[in-house]
């Protein structure tokens, strides 16, 4: 299959590219830009005039709920949702049921993903056996099976000593460790940010220090062990500042933030809106602004969805009893483009945070359109209005506070390995 993407505005931060041109695809790869390779006759042309042509999105955190929680969603349903949202590669955390702590789990996920729509799925392995935080997992075997890193997800590690050992052991196998900076003792039974809204509504709070003390420990251990740590889901301005300082000191740490943390605040929890029950919690406007700054300045290299689809019942309870998380694959790109609209950062940098930025964290040659790489790319109509709604929502989880928000910019085509895996109907 030879494909010609004609006259789109190709934005590829990895190549420093932003111009209107043609893009040629053959054998599943991007083979050329600007001028066709010799003897190239396309089997299909896609008219990309007025469209953005971007590398397919790389999402560092999407729970696909398989195995174990198929009542919430499946790999098939969620990769389909990802494709509709322009995501061509996603990383899933190991906190499935059972957790991803054996090569068999990795193989299962790979197999299911292969049978699905063509979005690439890369599992993280459990850092400790059963995510219990007491014993190291078989990291080397997990890596051989295809785990792109190790993670403890939202589960605690028993002691700083065990965490240190885990980091050292991972380093011996050249494994990146994905860690959530949460001090579980300080977070306690909290379900919202410990601040004004928690005080008014009488909801148990999670203090800022639950993040910053954990960061202090993780950064100290990064310095001590030389481990490659990726810090997952920053939620506070002070936390982002700590990470920026550590990076300036030469530590090998990277960080991400979920897109919703760049828009919502504790105020959105007002009226006990369970759709805004997330972990880490939505914090203050000052935190949101600090996170936005860290994203703009590149101290946070990746924006992820932190997708957590739920069945309706999971949110039908009094706020503290609801399950945390939102369905977010389909709003990752719209929210990121909105940052550009709101002047937070220029388009190229915004695109970098959802393509090459996360790809670099994974150490994978993804998130670029340079010739010779896999043709994972998307076309976006930047002017087309998009109002996410339940009736044209692909994820099995409808738990999004962004349903009925109005966005500008809509994915029209998603290609994975040169194959069109999603096309948005001209009329939605």
């Amino acid at each position: 299959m030879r494909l010609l993407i004609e006259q789109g505005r190709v934005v590829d931060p990895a190549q420093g590219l932003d111009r209107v041109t043609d893009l040629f695809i053959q054998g599943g790869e991007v083979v050329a830009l600007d001028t066709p390779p010799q003897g190239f006759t396309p089997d299909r042309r896609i008219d990309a005039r007025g469209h953005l042509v971007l590398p397919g999105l790389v999402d560092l955190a999407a729970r696909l709920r398989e195995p174990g929680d198929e009542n919430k969603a499946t790999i098939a349903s969620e990769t389909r949702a990802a494709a509709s949202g322009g995501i061509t590669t996603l990383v899933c955390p190991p906190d499935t049921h059972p957790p991803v702590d054996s090569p068999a789990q990795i193989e299962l996920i790979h197999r299911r993903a292969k049978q699905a729509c063509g979005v690439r799925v890369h599992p993280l392995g459990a850092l400790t056996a059963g995510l219990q935080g007491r014993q190291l997992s078989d990291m080397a075997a997990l890596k051989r099976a295809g785990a792109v890193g190790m993670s403890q997800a939202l589960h605690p590690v028993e002691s700083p000593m065990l965490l240190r050992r885990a980091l050292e052991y991972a380093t011996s196998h050249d494994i990146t460790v994905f860690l959530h900076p949460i001090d579980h003792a300080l977070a306690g039974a909290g379900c919202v940010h410990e601040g004004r809204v928690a005080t008014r509504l009488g909801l148990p709070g999670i203090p800022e220090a639950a993040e910053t003390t954990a960061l202090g420990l993780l950064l100290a251990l990064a310095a001590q062990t030389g481990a490659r740590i990726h810090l997952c889901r920053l939620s506070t301005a002070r936390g982002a500042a700590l990470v920026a300082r550590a990076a300036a000191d030469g530590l090998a740490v990277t960080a991400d933030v979920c897109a919703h943390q760049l828009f919502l605040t504790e105020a959105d929890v007002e009226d006990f809106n369970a759709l805004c029950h997330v972990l880490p919690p939505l914090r203050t406007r000052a935190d949101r602004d600090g996170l936005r700054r860290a994203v703009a300045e590149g101290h946070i290299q990746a924006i992820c969805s932190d997708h957590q689809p739920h069945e309706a019942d999971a949110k039908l309870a009094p706020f503290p009893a609801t399950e945390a998380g939102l369905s977010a694959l389909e709003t990752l790109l719209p929210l990121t483009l909105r940052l550009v609209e709101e002047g937070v950062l220029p388009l190229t940098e915004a695109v970098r945070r959802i393509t090459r930025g996360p790809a670099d964290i994974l150490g994978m040659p993804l998130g670029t359109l340079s010739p010779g790489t896999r043709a994972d790319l998307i076309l976006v109509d930047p002017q087309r209005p998009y109002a996410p709604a339940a009736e044209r929502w692909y994820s099995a989880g409808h738990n999004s506070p962004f349903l009925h928000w109005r966005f500008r910019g809509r994915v029209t085509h998603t290609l994975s390995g040169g194959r069109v895996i999603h096309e948005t109907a001209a009329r939605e």
Partner: protein
Amino acid sequence: MTEPETAATAAGRPSGPMPPSMQFTPEGRLRHLLTIEGLSPELVTEILDTAESFVGMNAQTVKKVPLLRGKTVMNLFFEASTRTRTTFELAAKRLSADVLNINISTSSTVKGESLLDTLRNLQAMYVDMFVVRHADSGAAHFIARHVAPHVSVLNAGDGRHAHPTQALLDMFTIRRHKGDFSRLKVAIVGDILHSRVARSQIQALNLLGTGEVRVIGPKTLLPAHVEDLGVRPFHDIRTGLKDVDVIIMLRLQRERMDSGLLPSEHEFFQLWGLNEERLALAAPDAIVMHPGPANRGVEIDSRVADGPRSVILEQVTYGIAVRMAVMSLIVGASVNQGAAQ
């Protein structure tokens, strides 16, 4: 002070799933009572005035009016309670309603039935009003959001969030003793952090234009940004009680000692307990209140609890009248008409 945070930054965001008017019918009548927040001072005054008309009635030999005749009120208690449940029950019965008490903490939710399922099953029995107590903040809002259009929800305490009828009966008690709120200094002492009663009291006091509302306690028992609720925080009880007209003591739960919030009951009593010596720092005619049940020797000395300035038992008595007032206003019956019958 930073500017107040508004919900969404984004244009085009629809209004939240629960507008502030949720407690009211489209015509502006009270439908649910979930929290004091969002009520108008006029409505609170109307409730208190209505309660006045029931107080006299409660002392008579015939204690019934037919305002809720034919209605079914269900006391749905997911948390143990004696006083609140009993006064709600009496209030409903004196208004001639049929009353059912359901204690769910020992019932079906333990067997894994979801709250929504429980609610739907009970609703299928044609209940007109649920009086709900639940350990989770927001539970009453959640239930109100999911009941059928003809059903009302009365919050009898949800987690740490709100206990509006308790606050209203406290306002009633204060008004009876002190009249005008604007000249009053009111101090609430003890565990503000975990107290739904304190949150609702603070809102009600501010709504009625109270001169000054103070909270007194160690930092471990005051929530973050407590001053945003419209109060002046004090750690020292002696400074805090100076010249106040009303002292409200809160109950201190035993488990607070286990979670490291306090060293001991003994030390709490030493530092924040109300005794006669400290009471003397308040205004000479200050009254002492407690939502009950009181821990004598922990937050309050028996001599004060049983002393001449204590109005603790009055609070219980007025609780019935205030709950009758709320129930009758929600059902929309004209009180004058009912009282005349």
